[in-house]
């Protein structure tokens, strides 16, 4: 059996490659060139850099496996970066890592695994693929502090059959120990934090430069419509944001709504942030269908804890989740991922939060 390991130049994917070798696979390492500077080279800052691909190449050499760089710049630009910008233009808060997984990594790359002569695609994600009696299960990582199952919720049975996530079975500290034991140069490399395509400077500057529509000025208003101030672009605001609003008010105010048609930012009190539930687009289920009892725990941000919720709707009419308790700062554009215990059931993209107990589905 032959494994195609997507190597980012970080410790997790380095160890993933080593683990596949150890378990008897022939291994081929690849780095996706996803972004480039104006000179056509890989960027020097960010996470998808020349230095990272050189780290991946050196690790591949240490492991004595073939290594290639695959050009996905066009696909990444149109499917991830442009989408990222469009989301900000429409007042949403996107998660580009999820779109990359959905549209590039576990899509075009997964589909190409066989053409590249390999049987399975391996990444360094912290999550687990468990083969059950009748189907594959997508589970949280063994290390709860590093769990990345949230960004993998779109994987379906066909995908999971061809994916291996070996480092999801390990504590992060054990991943580093393993890398050190093999003498891999990435053993002590810090985890990447930044968006891989932004590079130096903030993502907001990046968006301003590339997607001017996300930086069109507009009014800042109170929930009663009173005009408070003006702003320089929706890109500077996220639902739930308190700091950096640029105006002083007598009490704490939060961004409670972004209205893209008029580029309006609405400020309100903490309680105005509470949502009873949300509508969710692009919903997929790992098993292929929703749980019969529709009871899930939903995670509405990468760093949020899952909370009990009930699914409503169906694939024909769209999906919503109703939280057991109202949730704060439900931001359209983020993923709502459905769990049951450690198992990922599925998820989608939040399109709208609703405040009351009524939803479109109650009509």
């Amino acid at each position, binding site marked *: 059996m032959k494994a195609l390991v997507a190597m980012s130049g970080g410790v997790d994917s380095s160890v993933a490659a080593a683990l596949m070798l150890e378990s008897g696979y022939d291994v*081929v390492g690849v*780095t996706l*060139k996803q972004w480039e500077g104006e000179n*056509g*080279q*890989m960027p020097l800052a960010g996470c998808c850099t*020349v230095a990272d*691909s050189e780290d991946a*190449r050196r690790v591949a050499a240490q492991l004595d496996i*073939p290594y*290639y*760089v*695959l*050009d996905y*710049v066009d696909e990444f630009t149109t499917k991830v970066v442009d989408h990222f910008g469009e989301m900000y233009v429409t007042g949403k808060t996107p998660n580009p890592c999820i779109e990359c997984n959905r549209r590039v990594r576990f899509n075009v790359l997964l589909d*190409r695994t066989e*053409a*590249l*002569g390999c049987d399975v695609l391996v990444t360094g994600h912290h999550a687990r693929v468990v083969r059950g009696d009748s189907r594959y299960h997508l589970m949280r990582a063994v290390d709860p502090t590093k769990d990345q199952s949230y960004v993998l919720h779109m994987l379906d049975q066909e995908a999971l059959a061809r994916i291996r996530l070996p480092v999801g079975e390990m504590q992060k500290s054990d991943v580093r120990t393993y890398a050190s034991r093999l003498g891999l140069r990435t053993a002590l490399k810090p985890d990447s934090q930044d968006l891989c395509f932004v590079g130096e400077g903030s993502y907001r500057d990046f968006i301003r430069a590339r997607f001017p529509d996300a930086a069109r000025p507009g009014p800042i208003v109170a929930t009663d419509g009173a005009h408070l101030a003006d702003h320089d672009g929706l890109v500077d605001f996220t639902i739930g944001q308190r700091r950096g609003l640029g105006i002083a008010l007598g009490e704490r105010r939060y961004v409670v709504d972004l209205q893209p048609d008029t580029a309006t930012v609405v400020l309100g009190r903490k309680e105005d942030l509470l949502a009873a539930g949300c509508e969710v687009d692009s919903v997929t289920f790992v098993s292929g269908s929703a749980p019969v009892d529709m009871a899930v725990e939903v995670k509405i941000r990468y760093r949020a804890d899952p909370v009990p919720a009930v699914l409503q709707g169906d694939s024909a009419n769209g999906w919503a989740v109703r939280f057991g308790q109202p949730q704060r700062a439900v931001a359209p554009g983020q993923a709502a991922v459905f769990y049951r215990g450690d198992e990922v059931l599925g998820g989608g993209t939040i399109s709208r939060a609703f405040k009351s107990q009524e939803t479109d589905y109650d009509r």
Partner: protein
Amino acid sequence: MFYLDHAATTEVRPETRTAMAPFLDDSFGNPSGVHEVSRRAKNALEEARERAAELLGAAHPLDIVFTGGGTEADNLAVVGSALADGKRGGVVTTAVEHEAVLSSAVFLDSLGCPVDVVGVDGQGRLDIAELVSRVGPGTAVVSVMTANNETGTLFPVREVAEAVRAAAETVPVHTDAVQAFVTEEVTFAALGVDMISLAAHKFGGPKGVGLLLAPRHIHLEPVIHGGGQELGRRSGTHNVAAIVGMVAAMEATVTDRIATRKRIDDIRNDFEATIGAALDDVEINGDLDHRLVQHSHLRIPGVSAETLLIRLDQAGVAAAAGSACHSGAIEVSHVLAAMGRSETAAAECVRFSFGWSSRPTDGHEAAQRVVAVARDLR
């Protein structure tokens, strides 16, 4: 393993290794010194220069400038001519030149030098009249490659040089003959040009050494500044072992060239015949009537070059596509773009190239592996 990437670089010839050995051992001197150790190195250097001049038909050994490779030789010819005598002279060149020439032209453009880049047709052919029409009083150098490094297309360099000379007698014509030297006659007499660039590693010499043949009456602003070696045209301590090795490889190449050419021609023809018989719709890129015998630049429609190269690597066939950028990803070739190939078509093109060490059965046997992989991918 089938090594079909001789155009990228080729094996060092045994003659090269033998010639180099003493200079990696006790003849280690710096040729610029006064003592016996230096003298030994200096004598070898000048003997190599004389021999190279003879092989290239140069009027004088000192017309040869040893450089750190083909890229540097091209830079010296193009940048050096344009900036000579404190001027901002113009450059006329073609859209399919090696990056060493094209990027030099971009650099000169940024300095305010007039740059004219002439296109090619779908087979990579040049319109000489069009090129000559761009040559004017401000032109400092015309640079036209002998053979294209990707497709192997040969330019009628001699005719180009004659036409340029008829239009503007004093404008020097430079040719990058890096890719051609191994199988084509490369001399002043054969090419009719004023300057010739060579890179040793393309014909069995070591990497990191090359030469520019440029008669001393051609003024060149140096691109490497320092101790004034090579009549001030290229400073830096001579890499004696590499220079001696390069000239030994030149000598061996010229000696076997006719036989090598015939052998490679047969191998390449076997290769293309085997592929053409087994796979439908394969296109051969370049000017099929004027092409280096060692190049086979193919488009296999429906097969991604990137995927094909990776699969061929795993199947023991080394080939290339486009030009590799620093990260190793394949970039769309400027040569294919100049020939009017769409991005999709260009992404399906692969270069197979043979060389002095190719075995007679390489063409047929490697082609069978290419066919097997391409069939699997189609």
